[in-house]
């Protein structure tokens, strides 16, 4: 019985030490979580901006960033009032929601880059074919034009008649 009690006590202390920082965050932990959330949000924005630069539609991701930003603002405001547990919780939630955004932005960027490469290849191929056709037609056209020009010049040559 004593053994059983001490085991329960040991497990309780172990679990408490494992999850204490989640339940009772202090000022230092809350501020560290805020800094992490701030950095995570900024990196997520950079990923989204890169995806947009690659031509992806990022409007959905911006809505998620807005939500994460609201969590961070809440975390800052609550941290100011001294409720560090709640501030920590909001900051961690912000970081977690932002991690998903980074992944989504990366896949959107890849998709957009692939689509762009495909489009560029197709357009460049069509342009090259059109340019080749233009070159060949240009050569034939020039030969035709040259011949016509010379014929007209020769027709203008003065004729010598016997008189």
């Amino acid at each position: 019985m004593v053994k059983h009690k001490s085991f329960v006590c040991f497990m309780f202390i172990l679990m408490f030490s494992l999850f204490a920082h989640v339940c009772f965050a202090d000022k230092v932990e809350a501020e560290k979580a805020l800094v992490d959330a701030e950095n995570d949000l900024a990196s997520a924005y950079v990923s989204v901006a890169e995806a947009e630069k690659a031509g992806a539609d990022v409007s959905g991701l911006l809505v998620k960033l807005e939500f994460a930003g609201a969590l961070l603002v809440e975390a800052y405001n609550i941290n100011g009032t001294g409720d560090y547990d709640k501030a920590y919780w909001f900051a961690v939630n912000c970081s977690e929601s932002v991690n998903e955004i980074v992944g989504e932005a990366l896949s959107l960027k890849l998709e957009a880059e692939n689509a762009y490469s495909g489009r560029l290849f197709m357009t460049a191929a069509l342009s090259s074919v059109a340019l080749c056709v233009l070159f060949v037609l240009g050569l034939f056209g020039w030969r035709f034009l040259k011949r016509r020009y010379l014929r007209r010049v020769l027709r203008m040559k003065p004729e010598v008649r016997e008189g």
Partner: protein
Amino acid sequence: MSFEGLKLSYMLSCFVLGLIVLSPTLVMVITLPGGERFSELWILGPGHMAEDYPFDVRAGESYSVYVGVGNHMGSSSYYVVYVKFRNQSEALPNATAGTPSPLSPLYEYRVFLEDGESWEGPLNFSFSGVLLSGNQYLVERLRINGVVFTVDKLASWDGENNGYFYQLFIELWIYSADLDEFQFHNRFVGVWLNMGG
């Protein structure tokens, strides 16, 4: 037309036709410079119009305005709008030098906007712990959107304008991916408040 003239005009026509044929590819590769890039920042009254701004304020009453941001930067932008509170003797941002006010921000909004989009959010505020002593008002606490901030701000009597004046103002900051930090975007706007008016 001389033979040389004919040759030159034919070559020019071919060159122009070649450019037209290549234009779809060129458009995809070359990035043309866009128009002027800028951001907007505004405060509107309680009816979302540029009127009925709170001016004569007192302790215990709630006031409401709207804060707005517009993005015309050519791409998505990440903004922070800082709400600051000052009396007449404290510094505003310097628009010429492009430096923000040295006052600490009380409240902030984080806004992500696509190019050409705008955002508007409420700014509800009220005062508590307001004391009049001699010719000075002291505002101890300012509540913004439900969050209470201790400000302890004094305002002396302004004989010229007849009032005890404070200013609630907002600054626009933009995130720079190159510098990996927020930069003051040289945009600020505020509302004057006459305490006890």
